[in-house]
């Protein structure tokens, strides 16, 4: 149980750190996809199948695609690799120190807090249960999320669509 968790954590944190350190943007995006898969594996480990597969579909299937598209569309140099200049030394030290401080605070908080021992039986969330709760107590939230997604989609289209005046033939 703990061994599996350790492996998952290794993949998750390792790929996330590598993604943030990588100088190649495409490698970053792909490593992040691995890290998202690791998150999904964590959900599976915890018994939340539905969340795990939703995570894979949304993050690996859609968000990473959009990220890759953005990477390819915003290349400076259309033939070469997508390289990023390394962060400046000041910025890097500042970021690392802030990260380390936050990590220290969080770790201290986690370690010092005292949780009740977990129930012996792992909870199960069947699809039926999730569906009933989504449609019952969380119905309003579901509707709002739907509206939010629609607005986000429209907003993204408005932002990213090219100006129609530039070339009338390309207008959608």
């Amino acid at each position, binding site marked *: 149980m703990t061994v599996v968790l350790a492996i998952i954590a290794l993949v998750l944190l390792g790929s996330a750190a590598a993604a943030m350190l990588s100088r190649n943007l495409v490698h970053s995006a792909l490593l992040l996809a691995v890290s998202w898969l690791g998150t999904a594996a964590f959900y599976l480990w915890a018994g939340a199948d539905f969340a795990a597969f939703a995570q894979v579909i949304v993050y690996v299937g859609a968000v990473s695609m959009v990220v890759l598209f953005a990477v390819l569309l915003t290349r400076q140099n259309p033939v070469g690799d997508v390289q990023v200049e390394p962060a400046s030394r000041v*910025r890097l030290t500042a970021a690392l120190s802030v990260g380390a401080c936050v990590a220290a605070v969080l770790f201290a908080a986690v370690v010092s807090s005292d949780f009740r021992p977990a129930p012996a039986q792992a909870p199960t969330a069947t699809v039926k249960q999730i569906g009933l709760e989504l449609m019952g107590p969380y119905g309003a939230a579901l509707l709002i999320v739907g509206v939010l*997604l629609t607005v*986000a989609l429209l907003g993204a289209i408005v932002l990213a669509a090219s100006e129609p005046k530039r070339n009338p033939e390309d207008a959608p």
Partner: protein
Amino acid sequence: MTPLHLCLLISSALFCIGLAGALARSNTILVLLGIELMLNAANLNFIAFWRFGPSPAHATGVIFVIFSIAIAAAEAAVGLALIIALYRHQRNIRLQDAVQLKG
């Protein structure tokens, strides 16, 4: 050291990686990805507390995660659209160059 402690340590480590990445990198896409990582860390916490928490009868943690995933997807879509608009405007996506409010 209960399993919950371990899970929370993992998620806080993930959060800090995302935070440091978002602060250190000057590429807008990487900053956005760092923010996504932080969101994921929060999701890990939801699941961990649902799994090892006191009252796991309801699927509350899972539902929170589902909503959070939906919002993260919306965020990614809008964020990347913004990046593309930024690129079209200034021909690069360095964060330091995006200093003008007026287009």
